């Protein structure tokens, strides 16, 4: 069997994205907020066994891990890597398909509404700076998005996200509980605002 490649891309002290060389979940996005959520999904079960892990988001070959303990990602990352490899070695699917529960149906409805807001309001505006915002999924009323074009790597991306997109969603889709930016901003090749020494 091929070696499993895992690349860690820390977003901040609390959040790190792991890119795995194999698919983990092909049925969209799954977000786990508790050990109870994780039951039945070996990958999430393994990750929640790591001290301080509070949230896991899996999509395709990406795992975003959110932790609350102060240990650096360099330390926690090793445990996450072992957890991913162990889950992939299991005979079970690493992530169980999302159960068709009421919450999921709500998320599907939210997805449609958020997508409509992105299409009609957000993207026409960020296009002014050569940017684009892609809706990745809605999980438990949390929006996962990815920025591209002029927004990817832009020095003001967080301002756009929190002061622009989040504000608009708060007004138009108030059921949205939060936004997670899964963009790899270090790969942005044409940011609208590039930071400089001041």
């Amino acid at each position, binding site marked *: 069997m091929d070696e499993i490649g895992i690349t860690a891309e820390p977003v901040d002290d609390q959040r790190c994205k792991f890119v795995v060389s194999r698919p983990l979940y092909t049925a969209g996005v799954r977000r786990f907020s508790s050990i109870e959520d994780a039951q039945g999904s070996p990958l999430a079960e393994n990750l929640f066994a790591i001290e301080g892990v509070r949230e896991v988001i899996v999509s395709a070959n990406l795992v975003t891990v959110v932790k609350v303990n102060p240990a650096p990602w360099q330390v926690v990352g090793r445990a996450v890597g072992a957890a991913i490899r162990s889950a992939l070695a299991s005979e079970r699917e690493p992530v169980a398909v999302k159960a068709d529960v009421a919450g999921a149906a709500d998320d599907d409805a939210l997805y449609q509404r958020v997508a409509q807001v992105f299409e009609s309001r957000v993207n026409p505006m960020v296009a*002014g700076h050569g940017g684009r915002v892609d809706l990745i999924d809605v999980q438990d009323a949390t929006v996962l998005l990815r920025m591209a074009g002029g927004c990817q790597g832009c020095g003001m991306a967080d301002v756009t996200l929190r002061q622009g997109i989040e504000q608009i969603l708060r007004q138009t889709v108030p059921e949205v509980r939060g936004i997670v930016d899964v963009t790899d901003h270090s790969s942005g090749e044409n940011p609208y605002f590039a930071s400089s020494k001041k």
Partner: protein
Amino acid sequence: MARPRLLLLLPTTTYRAAAFVEAARRLDLDLTVASDHASVFAAVEPTALMALDFARPERAATEVLSFAAEHPVAAVVGVDDDTAVLAAAIAEALGLRHNSVPATIAARDKHRQRVLLIEAGLPVPPFALHSVTDDPELPARDAPYPCVLKPLRLSASRGVIRADTPEEFVAAFRRIARILEEPDAAACGEPARRILVESFVPGAEVALEGLLDDGRLRVLALFDKPDLLDGPFFEETIYVTPSRLPAAVQRAIMRCTERAARALGLERGPIHAELRTNARGPWVIEVAARPIGGRCGQVLRFGEGEGAISLEELLLRHALGLPVASFERERAASAVMMIPTPRAGRLSELRGVDDARAVPGVDAVAITAHRGQQLVPLPEGSRYLGFIFAHADAPEAATRALHAAHAKLDIVIT
């Protein structure tokens, strides 16, 4: 009870946007971000986003005064030298406690600062001011060699050059004059037409991150700079804390910084001071009315465990008068490397980032240059390639981790 509204002044080119916005979010504030260019969402989110003319503080203050009539502002926070002045002007218009405008202007202007420090009897190297239109051959004859030539307003050692001979003086002078013709530098106006010349001060260089309360200095961190900074250019790469300097020297640095801040008229909020220390004691290189630059603030955390907070959260809490559980930096040593730009050219690829992140002690590697970006080393360069952050039991170990991580990077420039 209504949430306090913070007016955060963020230049669109700042490295600090994410850290400050995240800190505001953690505090659940009503946040208004004002920038020098309009956000694409400014028209539809006028309480969250606004554009101000950063070059005209009085005009900006008038606009904010009008805004605040409907949306009361509890605090105004700037993040760099220019927005420190702007924040002072706006705070004055709003009647909020803040540093005075003249104090922040003095902190921003290297010549004005030196004049005030000398008047206060502080140790400052002898200096002289020249116009970029001067014939450099004349001051080159009388300069105190070795000397350092520097612009009045640029940051992070940009345009700072050491000269040991009249020939080097003339070359440095002309080189700085060309840097000051760059659009972003020329935008400073009259200060971009001046060059400061001062005696080179030998000795170890340190950076003090502090917080002022009614003029009383609270030291948040004292960083050693383990790299030799003797010129001809002064590319700072590593900051590491706690300092390994003797306690008496650290106390002298703190007292000197507090006196310098007082001499400038600074009383409240963050300061970032650069000093050199040698057998004659500490020498003030500069005191800025802002926090540490780039993304270096990410290396600082205050308190321990899950309750620890970032530098930015601490500063926002202080500005708003919110409680701060601890002003004590975490016990572990921490260090940051501003990844040096090895040579000019186009950044084609940066390999080895994952290997660098895997070095024991390294917390994060943040690459801020983008692929395809033209890299320009000092003294002309105005952008960082990226940052490496490390923690360890001792400062030496944190520094070693940074060097080991840096050695893993393969920066491909074409």
